[in-house]
């Protein structure tokens, strides 16, 4: 009889400890995830995705002209100006979403600065040869891809 009571108490104790343990694990997961997202993150934005995927092929095309055309004369000069304007607009759009969007803001800023740096090099050093053109195209394309993939990683606000 006594043995029965002891095992019953043991079972009750085991059940309570299992529930407590589960509660502690859930609470810890909650606290961990809260601390990770304390700074916050914006949701997926189809406009950001469209801006990036629209501009990427255009930038690829203008890089092709860096191997042949004079970029400081019309019409390429106008085209360059229009791309720089769109990059600046994209940056302002992302910045407008606030600090929760800091990763995308920095990524767009890096794309913008990479484009400006490549453009400056092109103006200083003249037409690009085939190897250089392909290398530069690959890098700017990868920069866009990383930003596009980043946007796709964000959760949808459903």
């Amino acid at each position, binding site marked *: 009889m006594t043995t029965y009571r002891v095992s019953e108490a043991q079972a009750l104790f085991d059940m309570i400890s299992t529930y407590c343990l589960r509660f502690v694990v859930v609470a810890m997961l909650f606290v961990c995830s809260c601390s990770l997202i304390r700074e916050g993150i914006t949701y997926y934005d189809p406009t950001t995705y469209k801006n990036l995927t629209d501009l990427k092929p255009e930038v690829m095309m203008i890089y092709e002209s860096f191997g042949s055309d004079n970029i400081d004369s019309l019409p390429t000069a106008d085209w360059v100006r229009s791309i720089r304007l769109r990059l600046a607009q994209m940056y302002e759009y992302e910045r407008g979403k606030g600090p929760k969007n800091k990763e995308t803001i*920095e990524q767009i800023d890096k794309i913008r600065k990479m484009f400006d740096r490549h453009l400056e090099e092109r103006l200083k050093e003249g037409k690009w040869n085939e*190897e250089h053109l392909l290398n530069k195209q690959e890098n700017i394309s990868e920069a866009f891809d990383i930003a596009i993939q980043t946007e796709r990683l964000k*959760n949808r606000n459903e």
Partner: protein
Amino acid sequence: MPEPWITFIDELKDEAGILAKNELKNLVSDSLKDAEEFTRNQAQKVQRYLNQLALGKITKKQFESYMVDIAELTRMNALKMEVAAKARAQRLADGIQNIILDRLLKLIVYLD
């Protein structure tokens, strides 16, 4: 037959010992075997650029510009990984709120 860039590095005169040649070779070969696909891709590019430099297909300035590109891409990729971690945490926090706190615990009270 070694890659052109390895011969190029080995033949560089470096009396002042500015470049640790083996360190550079190890950096490239270790990165080529890295678990991360991004790192492996960047290492392949560095190797290709070094070969192009060794064969005179690109200039020193162009090579330098590629290294800046890779540094920027690496930072962008780190930002992508931060977003991935935050998005996972956001899904977990939302799941705990919506599934466990709002639904499961209500069900347990109902069972009581």
